[in-house]
């Protein structure tokens, strides 16, 4: 049943809401590739534009290049693998529910506002090619209240909000990262062990300092 569709022109909404099958995109697709994706696979043999995998629920998107702004916005399930870089506002408001734990893996770096309002799911930025600086821009994780962000770097991102806790990964974290790095290398090449040997930070919401606004009933 695996239907193979190939797109060579950069229209928007390719694979929007698709539930199965495999879509191959050979030229840069338009915005909202795989929005509401609910299963199946999309493989982009070049870069993708903005809002890739917006509100995605299941399935896999693999981008052999960079992805634009708001990649994985509000995604609740499935996985997005980006070989190179992600734009601004990636993974904003990702969430998880029961067996639905979305994954966003970016090989290079991401722009500012990565994982803002993150409520669940896993974001992994491998920082390949930017080993001399933090692989994310400003305001990473602002409003974060769930999920986790892994950064492969020795440099902490600038101006992290107080509501984000930074830690060294534990063995459970490494177990979570290992298959993601494995899949990344399977798709794009590279040696998983040497990537895993790098230094990681894990960012999680700081439960002792949550975003609760103090309200008084009136």
């Amino acid at each position: 049943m695996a239907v193979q569709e190939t797109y060579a022109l950069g229209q928007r909404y390719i694979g929007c809401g698709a539930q199965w099958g495999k879509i191959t995109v050979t030229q840069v697709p338009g915005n909202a590739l795989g929005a509401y994706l609910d299963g199946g696979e999309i493989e982009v043999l070049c870069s993708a534009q903005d809002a890739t995998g917006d509100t995605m629920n299941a399935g896999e998107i693999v981008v052999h290049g960079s992805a634009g702004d708001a990649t994985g916005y509000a995604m609740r399930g499935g996985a997005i693998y980006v070989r190179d870089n992600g734009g601004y506002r990636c993974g904003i408001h990702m969430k998880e529910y029961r067996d639905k734990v979305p994954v966003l893996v970016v090989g290079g770096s991401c722009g500012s506002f990565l994982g803002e309002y993150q409520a669940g799911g896993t974001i992994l930025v491998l920082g390949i090619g930017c080993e001399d600086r933090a692989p994310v821009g400003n305001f990473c994780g602002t409003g974060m209240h769930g999920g986790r962000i892994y950064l492969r770097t020795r440099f902490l991102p600038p101006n992290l909000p107080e509501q984000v806790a930074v830690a060294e990964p534990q063995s459970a974290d490494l177990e979570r990262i290992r298959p993601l790095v494995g899949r990344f290398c399977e798709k794009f090449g590279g040696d998983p062990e040497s990537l895993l040997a790098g230094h990681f930070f894990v960012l999680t919401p700081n439960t002792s300092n949550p975003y609760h606004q103090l309200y008084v009933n009136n």
Partner: protein
Amino acid sequence: MAQEYLYPEFQVVRDLSRCTGCRACAAQCANGVHRYDADRGQMVSDETRCVNCHRCVAFCPERALKIVKDRQCFRENDNWSGDAIREIYRQAASGGVLLSSMGNAKEYPVYWDRLLINASQVTNPSIDPLREPMETKTFLGKKPDTLRRDAAGRLVPELPPQLELDTPILFSAMSYGSISYNAHESLARAAQALGTCYNTGEGGLHRDFYRYGANTIVQVASGRFGVHRDYLEAGAAIEIKIGQGAKPGIGGHLPGAKIVGDVSATRMIPEGSDAISPAPHHDIYSIEDLRQLVYSLKEVTRGEKPVIVKIAAVHNVAAIASGVARSGADIIAIDGFRGGTGAAPTRIRDNVGIPIELALAAVDQRLRDEGIRSSVSLIAGGSIRSSADALKAILLGADAVYIATAALLALGCHLCRSCHSGRCNWGIATQRPELVARLDPDEGAQRLVNLVTAWTHEIKEMMGGMGINSIEAARGNRMMLRGVGLNEIELGILGVKHAGQ
């Protein structure tokens, strides 16, 4: 609590010559106002907990109870009202942001009450709705500018998707979470019986209610809670919520304590996790971005569902609506500043936004001036209190109206404005099972059907009086309205003449 300088606002008056000590009031009050004092052998009250919701009054079999405004007063001051003083005490004691529920209760002009409807006399005789057909059927959606015929001269049907309603009254967005399962079931069943729609709000759609899909508007808000393909497919239309009249410009925050059981399953977020809706959609920073979301929603539903964009009535609403109309939206819903809410910061609810009457008139006029009025339908909401308000909205240019507070009142709400406490004694704005059970969906649905049926009948009567026999002919017919006690600028914005002109 005396140290906070806050004294009870209401007094519980119990006529002890009537009270039999049956304790029905104690059982009904989730706020714990009533209690039997064995030492004194009588019922006693703790007024500090009373929100004046009348539940006990309605259930006292002896008619022994009355809740009255406490006469305790501050020294008279026309500038510093009692509310202003009490709000300062609350904030000084807590450091908190004031939180309120239901709509803006402040004294701002209600333009509906300054508008009067016309009737025919002698010429152009009125129509008797008992004798002649009156059409209230309403189609919401883009109307094509041109018709096309094929080679054989037959019309090529190219009508964009329409929301077909038997009456121009819809129930507006209230999420499961902000209101109860039984309240949602009442709305869904009433919408089905009435041939109209209710709206899920941004709490997702409970599995049990997918069967009312043909009468459901599914909402997509900035948090995207419960939004997935099946949900988008389930509804008759999809509403993108940009703003809400009670709290324009801010998002929402449903505390984790309220994300329990089915509410968590329906929103598709873990129990106890906060549900934060960011103020903007972070994939929409422009009309072009909005267009992208509109068309992605159309794409995923094969272009079969009309897309509504809901905006709050704010200062530049006419220009904003013009942009929204060009984004590909089929319907624009405008929510005025008196619209209700389950919880909003008091200052925003009371001070941000503009009245729906002015916003609606300005939007309708702007879209006409730009020649794009037929490319969208308009739904007006934000405190439509009666069939007269609804008809005035239609005469000002609305295709239909949204009601929510009026619908909750029909379900037994007493407008005590304490929805944010989660202890609604009427089983509406609560998730506590023993309170939810107080609202019987059979009775609730019937009361909603009664209300909307009565309003529809009244609309027909008023239309008949004007010699108009269809909603189509009433829409935007501002010659049928006159203002009373309005100045030139107000009359100009509303596009109506003064009474007597």
